[in-house]
């Protein structure tokens, strides 16, 4: 009986491991970046740096570098590429794209210190109102410490390893005590693996691409939001729903409202332990292959 139960537990743990792996960013396909494209992007970036005093040509070069980095990221996401893309976008005065690049990088590589630092700087450049409505909370987590997502990930792996260890001990000794520990470890593994699905906000995020009025309805005839009538470029919000050419947003300070979809063309999943949890429309929009309708 004990042997059968332990075998069933072993199969449960293995199945849970497969499901968990499918959700982790580690399952993403990583391909080496195209060296020619990478060299062209770096060259454009260097030319932008060389032309720092000439605003027009510097912006053009940085924008060119940002476009090249965007192409590279499609096939081989890496923290370096996201950082370079964000820097090039910010120096090209494309603040919303910069914030979006840093955010996407942190989704996959949450412990990258430079990405977190640069995202904080880019957020400080957004023109929030005097009351600072819509400003996301500052990242108070220490830069040197692994993020909660990472700690949770290691906790899941540890519980899984302990479960397997005690199962083997159960087979060796045929005693109930190791089996009890194995059961506890398995419960801990399943609980920790499922925890993000209950407590982590996985709604797609929106970065406002241009200054746009926030309305109470999905048409220009609706009145402006009484607390936050205008969303500045670079502001971040959660996507709640889409209807026609309008999207329904919620800002981090709680305001709800509608903006035209073309004013928020930077979409992505905000935070999840696993893969970016975007729906099909959002991902297609991100890839530029579909409209909102």
């Amino acid at each position, binding site marked *: 009986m004990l042997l059968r139960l332990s075998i069933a537990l*072993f199969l449960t*743990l*293995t199945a849970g*491991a*497969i499901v*968990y*792996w499918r959700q*982790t960013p*580690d399952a993403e396909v*990583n391909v*080496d*970046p195209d060296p020619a494209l*990478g060299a062209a992007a*770096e060259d454009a*970036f*260097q030319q932008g*740096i060389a032309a*720092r*005093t000439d*605003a*027009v040509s*510097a*912006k053009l070069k940085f924008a060119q570098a940002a476009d090249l980095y965007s192409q*590279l990221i499609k096939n*081989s996401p*890496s*923290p*370096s*590429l996201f*950082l*370079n893309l964000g*820097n090039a976008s*910010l*120096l*090209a*005065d494309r603040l919303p794209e910069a914030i979006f690049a840093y955010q996407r990088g942190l989704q996959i*590589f949450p412990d990258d210190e*430079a990405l977190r*630092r*640069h995202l904080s*700087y880019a957020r400080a450049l957004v023109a929030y109102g005097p009351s600072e409505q819509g400003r996301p909370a500052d990242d108070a987590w220490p830069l040197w410490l692994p993020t909660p997502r990472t700690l949770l*990930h290691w906790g899941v*792996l540890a519980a*899984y*390893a302990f479960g*397997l*260890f005690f*199962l*083997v001990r159960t*087979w*060796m*000794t*045929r005693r109930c005590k190791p089996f009890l520990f194995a059961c506890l470890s398995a419960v801990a593994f399943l609980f920790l693996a499922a925890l993000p699905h209950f407590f982590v906000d996985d709604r797609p995020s929106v970065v406002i691409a241009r200054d746009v009025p926030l309305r109470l309805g999905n048409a220009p005839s609706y009145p402006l939001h009484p607390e936050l009538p205008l969303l500045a470029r670079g502001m971040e919000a959660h996507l709640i729903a889409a209807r026609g050419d309008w999207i329904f947003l919620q800002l981090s300070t709680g305001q709800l409202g509608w903006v035209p979809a073309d004013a928020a063309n930077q979409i992505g999943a905000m935070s999840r332990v696993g893969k970016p949890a975007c729906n099909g429309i959002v991902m297609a929009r991100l890839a530029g292959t579909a409209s909102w309708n």
Partner: protein
Amino acid sequence: MIVTVVEQAAGLLRKTYIRRSLVLVSLILVASPARAQSIDPPVTRPLDFSDLVGAYRIQSTANRSEVHVEQPVLLKVMIQGKGPEKYHPRLEKLNIFPTDAPEQFFIEPMPDLTRALPDKDVWEFTFRLRPKSTDVTHLPGLKLVMYNPARRKFQPSYADAIPLTVIPALEPDIKLDLKVVQAPDSFYEIRPLTHPSHWREYLTAGVLFGMPIACLAWYLAWRRRHPDGENVRARRRSLAARTALGRLQTAKQAAEVSAAVAVYLRDRLDFPAHEATAPEVRRFLLRWGVSRQCAQQWSAFLADCDAARFEGRKPPLAERLSHEAMTLIQALEDHSCSSV
């Protein structure tokens, strides 16, 4: 007083109807001057009334005859005339534009350009009009509605519409934002495009998929190294056997060996007698289901113990007995496990 005089005169006439007529006429004469002196307009007024009392006329001029869409035209309105000071023309009271004018123009009054010359009976007001589309062909005609107390009626005065040519709006003059983006030096550094370290992925994959394989390998290796591990575990399950084996390892005399065996049989198999004699143990084991050969070995062993105890043999004999007792106990445990 007039009425009294008239009544007295009528009394002289001594005709009632003449007297009443004269009283009525006198009342009309008394009331008429009072009504003629009121300058306030009646309560019921036209919607476009400009709160103006007196006799006035209106004229308008424009500073331009051709404008782009949404470009301004200054419309100067001049009102000339006389009236009581209380009802002189005022900008905030003027209601001179037709009702459809806001559909064609953005209309803004300009109080800073208002000129009032009451001593010359002239008032000038200025409005800034911006046409909304190229469909507009005229600046609107104006209508000034006033109240004339002399004629006791509302009278309008008109200003003709002014032709206006509206041409399409100019393209907005967009200037490039030449602001140089300021950022810390770290934003100007390129991080090398080396492939990211895969240690995290390898570790995750190793734990998730390597661990079950490693555990199975570990268990198989353990089984290979301990082929009778289960038997050992089954033998050790019996506390009585472990205790007896421990006592037998330290036994120096045949009496101690015999006592340890008796305790084992009593604790392990519920042997009822306090002293284990060979015939009793043989019968008990046979009843318990042990093979006849094993029971015979136990019987022979206990007979040897009795002989050693009562004949006082040397310790080497005790060691042999204790080794023999351990072998018998293990054989009995194996039998009990296999029977279970």
